[in-house]
Structures are given as C-alpha cells and as structure tokens.
C-alpha cells in the first residue's frame, strides 16, 4: 500500500467514526456545534500523528509484553501537551471540550492505530496513516457538528443563517444519538450502492 492510500483510506473507506465506529464518546459528546467538532478533531489528529511517529520510532526497543502500557504512556504524554497548550492559548474552546480533552487518551482510534499500524510500519507511512485517520475523524466530527448546529440553532460555525429558532433537541444529548444514527445509516446506504 503506498502513502497516498495510507492517507486517503481514513476519509472514506476506513473512516474511524463512520465506518469503523471507533471513538464514539467524543463524537457524540462535543459535536453540539461545528466549531467544537473541528477543534476536537484537530486536537485528536495532533495526538494521533505524534503518537504514531513516536511509536513507529521506538517499536523495536519495546518488549512485546509491556507494549500496551508503553503506548498508553506515550499517548498520555501528548494528550497532556494538548491539554496544557489548549488551556493556555484557546481557553474558551478548552472550557467547552472540558473532560473530553484528557479523555483523548482512551480514544480507541489512537490506541487502535498504534497497535494496528504504527507498531508494524515505518515512520513515513505511519505519518500518512496518522494524518489520514486523524483528519478523517475531524471530518466526521465537523460533519456531525454542522448537521446538529444547522438543525438545532439554524447557524453554522457560529454564523446565524436564518433568524429563527431551530429544533433545540438536536443540540441536546438525544440529538447527538439521532443525528449520528442517521448519518451512519446514510453512509451505509452509500457504501452498499457504490
């Protein structure tokens, strides 16, 4: 598989959220607006990219039996970096994403790519894999956030499109489940007919 394929597979064919159904908690939890979704997606992309690079570099020095704890420590370090940088420079977004920033550490996508890809491949392909998967995740979150924001408050990225009230339910927790359910059903439909 070449690097281009490593990069693009994360968007559609193996999209972590829409196809592999991983990382559901942040997907549902932070997507009340498109901006929150995008912010969370990019934060995760950074962690995924850095952990993929580090793990593919050190994979030969880690004994097989302790590889999981070792990966978790590497991932947790980068999550701490993101947490501190965000609270310093983007306090508003940090406040909104709240608990979900430290919880990137238990996002199955990050550990999943470490185990399934970075621990078996070289640095360059791991970079493309991490970027592709991360941006695929960010894309899915932004999509879901946009849908919810559009229906829920008739705005997009904070810009009010129509001056009226939306269907409030879509910004509240039930809306997250409903919107994601129908989004995945739509993607399933596309994949079956494609």
């Amino acid at each position, binding site marked *: 598989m070449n690097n281009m394929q490593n990069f693009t597979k994360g968007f559609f064919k193996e999209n972590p959220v829409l196809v592999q*159904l*991983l990382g*559901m*908690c*942040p997907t*549902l*939890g932070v997507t009340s607006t498109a901006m929150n979704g995008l912010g969370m997606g990019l934060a995760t992309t950074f962690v995924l990219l850095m952990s993929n690079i580090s793990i593919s570099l050190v994979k030969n020095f880690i004994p097989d039996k302790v590889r*999981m*704890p070792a990966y*978790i*420590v590497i991932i*947790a*370090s980068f*999550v*701490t970096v993101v*947490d*501190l940088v965000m609270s310093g420079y983007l306090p508003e977004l940090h406040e909104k994403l709240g*608990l979900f920033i*430290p*919880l990137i*550490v*238990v*996002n*199955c996508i990050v*550990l999943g790519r470490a185990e399934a890809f970075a621990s078996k491949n070289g640095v360059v392909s791991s970079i493309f894999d991490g970027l592709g998967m991360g941006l695929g995740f960010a894309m899915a979150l932004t999509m879901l956030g946009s849908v919810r924001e559009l229906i829920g408050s008739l705005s997009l990225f904070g810009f009010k499109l129509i001056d009226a009230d939306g269907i409030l*339910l879509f910004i*509240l*927790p*039930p*809306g*997250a*489940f*409903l919107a*994601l*359910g*129908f989004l*995945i*059903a*739509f993607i*399933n*439909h596309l994949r*079956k007919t494609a």
Partner: protein
Amino acid sequence: MEYFIIVFGAIFVNNIVLNQFLGICPFLGVSTKVSTGLGMTGAVTFVMAIATMVTYLIQQYVLVPLDITYLQTITFILIIAALVQMVEIILKKVSPALYQALGVYLPLITTNCAILGVAILVIKNEFNLIESVVFAVSTALGFGLALVIFAGIREQMELVDLPKGMRGVPTALVIAGLLSMAFMGFAGLV
C-alpha cells in the same frame, strides 16, 4: 440527603451514557443480550469503585503535595490499566464462566472512558473520599441501568425487518437517542 442527591443525580439526571456520553463503546458493544449487559455492569461497577478510590487517594496524597497535578492524566490511566489487569487475573481464577462471557470486553474497560472520566470528574467536583466512592458506584449503576434497558430493547429489535442501511449500529443509536430523550424527563429534579 447529600448522598441521595449524588446517587439520584448520577443514575437518572446526569446518566453517564445517555447524558454525558461516556462509555459508549461497551454500551453499543455488549448490549445485544441482557445477560452480558448485567455481567459488564458488574465488572464496570467493581473497577470503577476501586479505580476512583485509588486515583482519589493518589491525587490527594501524591500529586497535590508534590505539585505535579499536570501528570494527572498519565498517572490515572496507568493505575486504571493496572487495576483492570488485576481484575482480569482474579476473575479468570474465581469465575471462569463470567470470564468467558466478558473475556473480550475486560481489556476494553481500560479504554472505557467512563472509568477515567469519573476519576477526573470527582476531582473536578471536589468530592471527599466517601462522596467519590458513592458517586462512582451510582454512576456505574446508571451505566448498568441504561445498558440493561437498551439490551432489552435491542433483543426485540432482532426480529424487526429494517431497511438495509439502518440495520445494526444506526438503529442502536436511534434507540439510544429515544432513551436519552426519556431520561431528559428527569432533568432539573436535582
């Protein structure tokens, strides 16, 4: 009364799955049968109570005095990973049947964000030790309640003829949405 508010709040008002969106993976993964749902609830309750207690003590007596609270995420996740490993070993010896049923999902408890989430939440809410443990147990019970209701509905959904694209996870998510809506009825009670 305080404890009642914590318990009621954690189980019904701010249900960990349907309102806080934590622990969705096991919620969707092991909820096809009521019996596995109950087993998973047991495992989660046990791990969550112990993990919260241990992480709380570490936070109060190690991280805060040494002024290294920025290591919270790393420390907590390592403690939880070690605990889950221990529970797995003990369960394998004590109850092989339950181990068979939950074997696949026990390692996944490490990456169950509900465990780490609750450990961080009790620190954020500034609970004391007893309140923390009460909160952890009732959160796990809330998780179990949602999981068992959900599994019951999904067992029935097996028999329903659905459009191809809606089968499986999309339907599960829609059901979760409706459940979440039902739980919104508790909002504002506490």
